[in-house]
């Protein structure tokens, strides 16, 4: 547990990172800026995912579905209803949250662990089927392009402008999630992971905790989807397939299950690398698969566990240490 002084240092560090990042566009070219923007999106995707599989301890596959819902919601709302893209970000988050509710509503019926995992798997595949088969809305296999749009007189195809918007959304959601995990609710989430029956005996409504975790996860990842839609400018069903799923698993695990810091680390490390593998079919799957297997055997709590050992500054509260 960090001392009061160390906690101050930690707060300082937390805000220093985005403050320094404000200067980053001075040092990047168009391509590296694009990659960095992608990293910010991955941070949110991983954050939402680690909340469910790390903090809550429920195996879930619906993360990619929330991402797709957010991206399609943003694209449809701006292309079909003409809403400004920036407004679609929270709306995409809300729809992602609705997805989170639907995917986890079986928890109210007492469905847990493998059964919940299978339901979320089915939910994800159903969403992919829906993108392909609701052609008037989603464009089917052709995908859906986002309309050209400008903010403050700058085109939204400008990666620097996008970077600042993405950064603001990311920092906001990371901070919100950190605070949420430090709250009474956050402790309840981790208590459910450790022992649901014991948690219920403390008069904590465990099914509701599971539901709310999924809803918040859906919100965060839905917002990430909206960013992604603008990031690539064109939403295709393939972006939300199995490859995205294993990439998310790898980011969560490399960073460290249930750690917000880990989510950031994993996402930043693993977003850029596959860009080089993309040219070789199958390499990405092989790479992520091997990474996940290696981390599970050699370092089950990920990079965050190494940092925790380095300095108590990196200890996130109420996380069980590996024995």
């Amino acid at each position, binding site marked *: 547990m960090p001392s009061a002084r160390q906690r101050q240092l930690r707060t300082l560090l937390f805000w220093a990172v985005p403050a320094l990042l404000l200067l980053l566009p001075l040092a990047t070219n168009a391509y590296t800026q694009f990659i960095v923007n992608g990293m910010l999106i991955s941070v949110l995707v991983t954050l939402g995912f680690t909340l469910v*599989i790390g903090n809550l301890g429920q195996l879930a596959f619906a993360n990619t579905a929330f991402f797709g819902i957010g991206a399609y919601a943003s694209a449809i709302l701006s292309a079909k209803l003409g809403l400004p893209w920036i407004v679609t970000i929270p709306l995409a988050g809300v729809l992602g949250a609705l997805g989170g509710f639907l995917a986890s509503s079986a928890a109210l019926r007492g*469905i847990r662990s493998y059964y919940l*995992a299978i339901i979320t798997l089915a939910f994800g595949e159903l969403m992919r089927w829906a993108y392909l088969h609701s052609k008037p809305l989603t464009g089917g296999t052709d995908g859906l392009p986002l309309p050209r749009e400008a903010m403050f007189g700058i085109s939204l195809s400008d990666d620097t402008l996008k970077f600042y918007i993405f950064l603001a959304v990311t920092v906001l959601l990371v901070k919100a999630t950190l605070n949420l995990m430090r709250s009474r609710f956050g402790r309840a989430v981790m208590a459910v992971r450790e022992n649901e*029956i014991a948690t219920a005996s403390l008069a904590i409504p465990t099914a509701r905790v599971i539901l709310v975790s999924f809803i918040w996860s859906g919100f965060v990842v839905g917002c990430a989807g909206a960013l992604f839609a603008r990031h690539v400018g064109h939403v295709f069903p393939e972006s939300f397939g199995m490859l995205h799923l294993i990439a998310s*698993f790898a980011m969560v695990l490399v960073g460290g299950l249930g750690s917000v810091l880990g989510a950031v680390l994993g996402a930043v490390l693993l977003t850029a690398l596959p860009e080089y593998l993309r040219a070789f079919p199958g390499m990405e799957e092989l790479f*992520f698969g091997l990474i996940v297997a290696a981390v599970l055997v050699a370092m089950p709590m990920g990079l965050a566990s190494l940092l925790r050992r380095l300095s108590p500054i990196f200890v996130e509260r109420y996380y069980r240490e590996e024995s």
Partner: protein
Amino acid sequence: MLMQLTLGGFAQGAIYALIALSLTVVYRSTTVVNFGHGDFVMAGAFLSYVLVVLAGIAFLPAAALAMIAMFVLGVLFSKGLIRPIRGGPHIGLALMCISAGYVLRGIARMVWGREVLPMPAVFDMEPIFLGDLVITGDAVFIIGTVLVLLILFFGVLALTDLGKMVQAVYQSPRGARLIGLNVERFNDFSWGIGAALGALGGILVAPVSLLHPDLGASFLIKGFAAMTLGGFGSLGGAVLGGILLGLAEQYAGAYLDSALIEITAYVVIVLVLFIRPQGLFGRKAVVKV
């Protein structure tokens, strides 16, 4: 029409039954649900393709070789990757299975890329016409193979000493250990059997469908749907669930909408878990807190 659909449903269902059974074999002995199983099925299909088309071996010995290879792979997976993390959280075991699946899929895609491979028909048998009903050689072959296998499987389980040991481990791994059974080795063996049976599912669909590295994903879902319907963890339920799912797909596709064939399995999973989570023959799936 109805008879034709029923026959098609049985042929499809036989394969789903096999996949669900192979998932259940692993689940019952190790309590691990193999979320990468679809890719084991795919690997079986691709191995048989390699042996038949590229190495020129006849179908039956090729199928046997592919199953033996997958058995060995399953045992090695259990020994090398599952055992070291057995003590850890359960989520790690599921993730290990997923990553193994992706590795298999990545290898298949590295070799074959985006190609879609047709497998030569196994039996160039003249279809039999019974009134309106057309019975193809493939349907006979699939249903026949699965039937023989099921009789063998459940026969061994019910009538032999080996079957008794299997049931003992299923009932209580700890008790089985106390009476001197090597449960660790038994678990490795179960992984091998699971992988080989799953591979057989892939080998059987190979001649009637096109091969591509992603074919596993849909079979995984069908296997889960069959397991859920029959009752998670019940061996007989997995088989019955598979057959019922095959029939439901055919009927829904013909009488409602052909696009529904793809999502019948998902709908079955969701409906069963909401209405009767324990399935037809399963134990209680609901957590009461």
